[in-house]
C-alpha cells in the first residue's frame, strides 16, 4: 500500500482528518512529527490544516522552520508530491516552495462554509484524477485565507497554468483572481486553501468531491 506522510506540528488540527482521507482513498497514512527529520520513506507528504504554533508571528511562519520542513523541502525538490492544505498552504508559501502569501480575510472574520470550486489543472500529482473544469464542493474554513501575489507572479501563474483551483459562486476571503489553490511548475507541490479532507464521506461533509486529491496522488507517488 502506498504510504503518505501527514505532518503534525504543535497546533495542527486536521492531521487526523487528512490521515482518514488517505485511508479512505486506499493509502496508508504515516504520522510524521515536526521534530523528526526522518520522512520514513513515504511517497507523498501532506501538511495539514490547523493553527500551527497558534498562528504566532504569522500563519505558518514558525512551522516553516521545523526540522521536518528541511526534509520536506528537499523531498519536494526531488519531485516528491507535497500537498499543503490551509495552514499547510501557508507553510508552503512561507517556505518559498510556492509563490505569494496568505493574509487576513478581507472581511476580517473566520469563515466556514461549503464552497464551490473549479479544478483548473489536472497536471499536478494531487489533481491528476480530476477533469480540468470539474466543479466540486468542499469546505473552506479559515481566517487568513486571502491569497496575494504581485502582478508578475499572477501573470506567471495564469500563463503557465499553475492555478489549480478557483473559487466559484462567491470568493470567501478576497483572494486575488479567486485563487483557491496553486502548484509549482513541476506539479508536485500544491497548496490549497479549502479542505478536501472534509469532503471524503457524504456523512460528514458536503459530498465526496475532495476524495480526488487523495486518490490522484496514489497513482503517481515518488519515494521520499
Amino acid at each position: 500500500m502506498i504510504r503518505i506522510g501527514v505532518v503534525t506540528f504543535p497546533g495542527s488540527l486536521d492531521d487526523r482528518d487528512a490521515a482518514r482521507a488517505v485511508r479512505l482513498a486506499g493509502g496508508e497514512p504515516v504520522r510524521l512529527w515536526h521534530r523528526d527529520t526522518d520522512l520514513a520513506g513515504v511517497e507523498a507528504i501532506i501538511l495539514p490544516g490547523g493553527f500551527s504554533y497558534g498562528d504566532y508571528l504569522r500563519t505558518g511562519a514558525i512551522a516553516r522552520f521545523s526540522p521536518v520542513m528541511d526534509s520536506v523541502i528537499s523531498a519536494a525538490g526531488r519531485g516528491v508530491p507535497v500537498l499543503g492544505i490551509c495552514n499547510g498552504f501557508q507553510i508552503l508559501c512561507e517556505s518559498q516552495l510556492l509563490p505569494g502569501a496568505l493574509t487576513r480575510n478581507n472581511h476580517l472574520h473566520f469563515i466556514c462554509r461549503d464552497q464551490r470550486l473549479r479544478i483548473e489543472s489536472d497536471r499536478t500529482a494531487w489533481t491528476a484524477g480530476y477533469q480540468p473544469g470539474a466543479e466540486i464542493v468542499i469546505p473552506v474554513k479559515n481566517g487568513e485565507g486571502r491569497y496575494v501575489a504581485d502582478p508578475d507572479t499572477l501573470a506567471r501563474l495564469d500563463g503557465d497554468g499553475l492555478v489549480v483551483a478557483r473559487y466559484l459562486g462567491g470568493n470567501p476571503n478576497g483572494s486575488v483572481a479567486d485563487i483557491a489553490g496553486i502548484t509549482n511548475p513541476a506539479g508536485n507541490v500544491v497548496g490549497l486553501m479549502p479542505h478536501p479532507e472534509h469532503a471524503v464521506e457524504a456523512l460528514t461533509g458536503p459530498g465526496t468531491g475532495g476524495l480526488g486529491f487523495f486518490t490522484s496522488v496514489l497513482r503517481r507517488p515518488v519515494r521520499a
Partner: protein
Amino acid sequence: MPRVVVDVMLKPEILDPQGQAVQRALERLGFDRVMSVRQGKRFEIELAEPVGTGPGAADAAAELGRDMAAKLLANTVIEDFAVRIADDAGGTA
C-alpha cells in the same frame, strides 16, 4: 544594553483590512480627519551582549536586526521592515 527595534508593515500595495477597520472605528469615535490607517507590528529585541564595540557596534546590531527581520520577523513577499537601535530610555541611538 541596546535594544533592536524592528517595525514590520504590510507593503503599500497589499490590502490591509485591519487598518481599514481601525480607520472606521476611529471615525465612529469622532476622529474625522483620518485619511488612512495601516496596521503593523513592532518587535523589541533585547540582546544579551553588544555586537562588537565602539562606533560600529550600533551598525552591527542593526545589521543583526535586518537579518532577523528578513529571515523570520517579516514575510518579505508581502511585508517591508525598518530597523533601528533604541537606547534604554526608549529614544533612538
